[in-house]
């Protein structure tokens, strides 16, 4: 387990524009706002945040599915935006994604076995029919499905089973990095737990690196080694371990909002007031200032940067400093 980063974001910015043309004004949404991040190999890095925080965009940037508007994304030291098509295809074999919605992540007209073997087809890996069938059976078994399911169509499977197929397909090319974009958000709780257990087993068995994107803080704290907290496109805190002392007010608010399944611990306080602002008109200072109970004038003018420590936080008044008690 080395600490060499398998994935690096260097001042990555990603904008989306909407409107424009003759009648609308052109507006720019800054989904990812100058993010610097290292994802170490062999560990589970969680990215948590609410809607508009940019975590899904980050996931797609990580796999080169979209290009940064500025900055670089480096996978195993290679700048994804600078690759030739052929080289990119070969790189893709080493980094795969498991998507949130199992219902739409497999082509409804393809049999499950064909979908799992598609990676081989796309990458030009030739194999005999017997070999192909054997690999499909292996992959199905690896994700806990019966090999006889290979001929089934997706709509015959349950949500949990479809997600297992998605995982099998992501593992077909034996990637080193797997990006999991809310892989269990659409599933029932009992199935979610099954899938998480499956992912744990696979990580150990195949020595994978996970980038685990979720809005569920409880799940992230359970599953991840380190946790990146995002808000409106910026990284506000990176927790080096799930039980690290929380330093950013937003992370605190997120923690307080999570409903603890224990009726004897009823929380009355809500730390975050108001709603998440729009990423179209980002304020000049700290993006969280409008909602932060501790915000001062400096917070509204000057954008805080992530401090370079083992527990980075982007805040002028982090919670461990004098004054702000949690």
């Amino acid at each position: 387990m080395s600490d060499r980063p398998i994935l690096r974001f260097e001042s990555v910015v990603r904008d989306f524009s909407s409107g424009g043309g003759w009648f609308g004004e052109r507006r720019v949404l800054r989904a990812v706002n100058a993010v610097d991040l290292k994802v170490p190999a062999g560990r589970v890095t969680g990215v948590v945040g609410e809607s508009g925080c940019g975590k899904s965009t980050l996931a797609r940037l990580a796999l080169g599915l979209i290009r940064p508007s500025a900055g670089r994304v480096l996978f195993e030291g290679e700048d994804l935006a600078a690759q030739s098509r052929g080289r990119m295809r070969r790189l893709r074999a080493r980094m795969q994604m498991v998507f949130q919605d199992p219902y739409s992540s497999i082509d409804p007209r393809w049999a499950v076995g064909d979908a799992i073997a598609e990676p081989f087809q796309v990458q030009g890996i030739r194999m005999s029919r017997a070999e192909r069938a054997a690999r499909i059976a292996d992959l199905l078994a690896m994700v806990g499905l019966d090999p006889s399911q290979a001929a089934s169509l997706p709509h015959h499977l349950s949500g949990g089973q479809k997600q297992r197929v998605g995982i099998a397909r992501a593992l077909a090319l034996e990637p080193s990095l797997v990006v999991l974009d809310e892989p269990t958000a659409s599933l029932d709780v009992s199935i979610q737990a099954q899938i998480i257990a499956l992912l744990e087993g696979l990580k150990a068995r195949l020595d994978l690196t996970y980038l685990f994107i979720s809005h569920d803080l409880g799940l992230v704290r359970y599953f991840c080694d380190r946790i990146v907290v995002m808000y409106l496109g910026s990284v506000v805190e990176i927790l080096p371990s799930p039980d690290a002392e929380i330093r950013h007010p937003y992370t605190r608010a997120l923690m307080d909002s999570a409903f603890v399944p224990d009726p004897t611990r009823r929380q009355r306080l809500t730390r975050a007031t108001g709603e998440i602002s729009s990423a179209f008109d980002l304020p000049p200072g700290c993006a969280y200032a409008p909602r932060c109970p501790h915000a001062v004038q400096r917070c509204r003018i000057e954008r805080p940067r992530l401090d370079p420590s083992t527990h980075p936080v982007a805040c002028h008044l982090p919670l461990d400093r004098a004054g702000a008690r949690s």
Partner: protein
Amino acid sequence: MSALKPLLQAIATPRGAPAALVLVSVVVVAILADHLAPHAYDAQNLMRANLPPSADHLLGTDEFGRDLFSRILYGARISLGVAVTSIGASVAIGLVVGAVAGYAGGWVDRILMAVVDLTWAFPEILIALVLIAILGPGLGSTAVAITVGYMAQFARLARAQIVALKGETYVEATIGLGAGHVHLLMRHLVPNALTPVLVAGMLATGDAIVLEATLGYFGLGAQPPLPSWGAMMSSGVGQMFLAPWVIVFPGLAIAITVVAINLFGDALIDALQIRNRLREG
């Protein structure tokens, strides 16, 4: 095979069954005209002109003494044949143009759609007349006219489908596997985009038959002695009160075929929509 299921479901409805029966009959007639027709379609006998229906001439004779029944049977071959081949070609071209436009986006999309919209702006009959003025009347020109005239709707439909499908998660997933454009288009996008385009094609066939008949009526389509239903109606106008069967029967043939196509098309649409809803349930 999953493609047959909606077809069978459509046939199993109160509208679909008789419509399918009629269509199958028309197709059979078109194919077996040589064996079913009691007379040659161009066998003239001026002594037996404008005869009413009888045992020898089931539907009577026209102004040249030709057997109407035989001419209608062969007419099925012409009308259906031209309509199906032209629409088939139109669908194929429209599909390619629409898919490329929808997939590529940007200026490729804009240019292609501008051309498509240009053809769409004109009624098919106008396009047909212009093409025939250039190419001269005849079956071939009619086929080209139909192909060009109907292409726009298929291109638009295909493009809309592709654009919508581009956003599907499985497309993104396949790109993530390293798939190239061709693989994406041919294995995922086009197959999923086919259904509405094919159904539209089917319904357009009915329109095409009418268009062919219209052109034939003006003498611009199949040239005599070819038994185009429309041309038969045209020549029947002169005899309308003397021998109404000459105009009525071809007209009925057109009407029945087109109505059957539309009814079956509707039943097919219903079957497909219900299937989609059930799948999501």
